[in-house]
């Protein structure tokens, strides 16, 4: 049957059991009982849309939004910690993010509308595992770690290892993301994120984040990540290799950015074409590198 007959976006056209745990332990216990036929609801900006469009029809839904103590942004021991229920809007208003994780702040300001940012969570954006997720490239270049809990305990997953394929993460069915941790970057470093989309408030056709650490005019560390140009958000190790140890110049950035085509595998879809994505990926990376570098220089005066 055509999807048109099954879709009814005015209502939720499916039946499901709904749970609203008040503690994380209660949530984990429920999750272990109900998995794998269960979905976690936080902001709902992805899940509810998919349910209305009948792309997913979960038997059980656990709404974690009522759990106390999961909505925070703190900094301790050189780490910025973001609770699973922190919304994009919370991050947008946080001086730690705008000052210390500039690429993420860039991404926030071009993700959705204020209304969507006020509902959606960053953790949810990662768990949705869209190749185009706006939070992924910035968090990848900042070396973020995802903390996942189950009744079996809590483990730390580097974001590099988190995404598998469109919609798929490495999380076990009974696991839930409880926190995202980002190391506070050193001085003389900065980052930037850029994306191309059809209009403002749109999903990315292609996006790129760059992280640079510069000492005495030399790149001492660099990370590059791209979105919407592979089955998952990807790092470009080829480009990074061309940056580290080189002088921080426009020429270096330009040469390195051309390497990214080796690490991407874009496709044609309704938003753009493979050939376009291939052409603009190096441009985005180069522009992001330049922007990050200009921020470093700005900071150094």
């Amino acid at each position, binding site marked *: 049957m055509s999807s048109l007959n099954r*879709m009814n976006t005015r209502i939720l*056209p499916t039946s499901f059991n709904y749970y609203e745990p008040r503690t994380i332990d209660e949530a984990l216990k429920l999750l272990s009982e109900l998995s794998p036929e269960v979905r976690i609801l936080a902001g709902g900006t992805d899940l509810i849309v998919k349910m209305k469009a009948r792309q997913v029809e979960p038997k059980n839904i656990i709404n974690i939004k009522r759990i106390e103590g999961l909505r925070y942004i703190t900094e301790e021991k050189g780490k910025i910690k973001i609770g699973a229920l922190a919304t994009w809007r919370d991050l947008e208003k946080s001086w730690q993010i705008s000052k210390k994780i500039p690429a993420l702040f860039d991404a926030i300001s071009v993700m959705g509308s204020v209304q969507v940012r006020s509902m959606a969570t960053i953790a949810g954006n990662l768990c949705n595992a869209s190749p185009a997720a706006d939070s992924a490239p910035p968090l990848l270049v900042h070396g973020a770690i995802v903390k996942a809990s189950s009744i079996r305990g809590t483990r730390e997953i580097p974001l590099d290892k988190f995404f598998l394929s469109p919609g798929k993460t490495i999380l076990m069915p009974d696991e839930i993301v409880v926190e995202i941790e980002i190391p506070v970057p050193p001085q003389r470093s900065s980052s930037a994120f850029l994306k191309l989309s059809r*209009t403002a408030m749109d999903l990315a056709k292609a996006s790129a984040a760059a992280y640079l650490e510069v000492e005495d005019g030399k790149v001492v560390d660099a990370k590059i990540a791209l979105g919407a140009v592979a089955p998952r958000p990807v790092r470009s190790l080829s480009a990074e290799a061309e940056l580290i140890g080189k002088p921080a110049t426009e020429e270096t950035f330009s040469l390195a950015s051309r390497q990214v085509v080796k690490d991407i595998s874009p496709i044609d879809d309704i938003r753009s074409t493979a050939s376009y994505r291939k052409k603009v990926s190096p441009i985005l990376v180069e522009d992001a590198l330049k922007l990050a570098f200009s921020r470093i220089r700005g900071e150094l005066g």
Partner: protein
Amino acid sequence: MLNIAERYSFIGKDIPRRDADSKVRGLLEFSTDISVPGMYYGRIVYSPHPFADIEEIDTREAESMGAVVITPKDVPSKPFNIRLVSVNEVTFKDWNILTFSPRYLGDPVAAVAAPSEELAQKAAESIKFKFRKVYDPILDAFESMGSQSAPIREKILKGEEEIPVRRNVGAELNYLEGDLEKGKREADVVIERAFKTNRRYHFQLEPKTSLCVPEHDGRFSIYTTTQTIHNTRILIGQVFGIPLSKISVKRIPIGGSFGSSIQTNLVTLISVALCMKAKKPVKISLTREEDMYDHADYEMHLKLRVGARRSGELTFGELVNIMDIGAHQVQAYPLLGTALGWFVSLYKWKNIKYEGKAVYTNKTPSCAFRGYGAPQISWAVESIMDELAEELGMDPLDLKLKNYVGLGDVFWGQGPTVRSVIRSDGVKELVEKGKQLIGWDRRKPPSMKQGRYRTGIGFGRSFHTSGAGGPISGEVIDYTGATLKLNEDGTLDYITALQDHGGGTLEAHAKIIAEELGVPPHLINIVPSDTSVTPYDVCTHASRGTYVGGEAAQIVKSKVFEAATRILPKAVNPEAFKLVYDETLEQAVVYVEGMKDMRITLSEIARTSWQRNWGTIAATVSYRATSAPPTFTVFFVEVEVDTYTGNVKPKRVVAGADLGTVINPKLAEGQLHGGFVMGWSMAYLEDTIYDRRTGELLNKGMVVDYKIPTSQDSPKLEDFKVIFANTYEPTGPYGAKGLGEAALNPVAGAVANAIYNAVGVRFYTLPITPERILEAISGGGKQ
């Protein structure tokens, strides 16, 4: 000469819209907000195949759930056309309410109604089909006309006569004028180009809704999304065989339309059919996704050949217009004529050949979209005129001013049977002013541009008619009506069937009446009305609509003067009276010039007529405009192209309009802003793309993958200048002309010309996306 605002009490002044406050606060009720006790919710079941024949529809499970179900067997089977605008003899009929022969994915094949939306949804999903035959969808107009293609339709009705459909061509119109061969011989330069437009979705704010309520006395009340309550009533009457006196269609505020509800929507007919079977009120609200499968713009494949002498004088114009109309005819035949009308009324080609075909495909049916083909034709013509100018070594502005159809010329925008002579024309004035404001003389050719970011300036010119009226009764029905009554305290009730799409049509009526009778607009009640209490009105379409209120007001005025002769001693001749709005009294005063004691307020006259049993002062008129004068528009657009990414930004806009007297300047400016954004979107963003294999929309109808510009994608307000020409249209009310569509028509042409001026590449397919631009300027354009 006094300026407009000084000459008039209300016209030309900015007065807030009466519905603005309630719209902003969400208090205004649209059709979908209306509920009645005991109401059932309806859902439409669509064919899962875009091209198939159904053997059997199994509704048992749905019925066992307690739902009321209708299939093609439950509804009248005689084909009709959902748009009543042409006279019957040239109305092409291929529609049914529900069909066993679905011809696009989204063709309604059954419908259900149940006490809750959830139950209705479940019931709809339970319906099963057995197909006799499933065909591969035909999604291309040229493929459709090929000898290998299966017939999408074999027979349709033209009027009451059954006619065969050959090669999937639903309607044709050809035209010849002058001597084409002579025109070709005289041409020093000839250019031929093929253009393809996009198939845009209207994206009106309100998805279509219909609520049909059976009344206790056997009547039906209908609350639905429509631009025409009367045609909706007539069609319901014709299709179901219900006397018109038993149907009342209410005029409900409409959340925008852009032409998408110019016809009676199928959802309305389905709600009536369900209501008749269920004997309950039934409401169906389309979801956004269903709405996107319901209607789209006409996709046009235009082949243009034009010629000119070295002097820049045009010698001929040839247009082949192959329209992909989707699975049904809404107004394909009249559009073939109108497309020709836009073409011949843009420039003086002198010798003209036109070939138009409307071709069926297995896509969502096309219907009118703001501009009704003029945005498409204007894009192609304005592009080729720029190319011609370049070839001739002329400034495109000079070439266009030399050849455009203007003052004193015969003009037939709405097609061959709707002709009139142009009596007001502000094109030259607008071009002169616009040229200065945009800095046209500083414009450089693309060859002189370099670097990553390149700017370009483009110009586009077009027009639209004000209505589809004319001196003779042609193939198009166009008249309207209204009732105006003077209340017992001197205020007014204005009763009309005309709809306001959001452009402020009725607000303009109120202002014209206010000007005529000296009653401030806020004391004129625009009565919530329905078909039972209003004279016939064809539709709020073709940017028409400002005439009829003034006509009624003039009759009321003469009756007021008659009443004045009965009140004032010595008064004999009603003609001697004048009426003026007195700002200190804040009301109208009737007086005789130079006679101090011959003066009385309008409210006094109203009160006296009541107290002395003279009866109500009122007028009901039915009115046909004798001309459809053109509103001319010009756009100058500056864009910036990022040659590394293909992204284009609109930097500056000068929008010029000759709409005669400007009744409400702020609303008119708003129309031009909106027109630009819509035209920008047409040029740069929009298309409904089909999956070639399944015939589904690639975006499945989801707005996440149908993009229109946001305010962030639009030019800044300070970079958008609006200019109005200082003209007066003698056939218009207070010298006014319509604006809604003219505000859009030239935009895509101007944008395309600006992009060309920036990068030196011309695009013949819409939309001109960054992908297409980058492909064309090759290798990322790094230089």
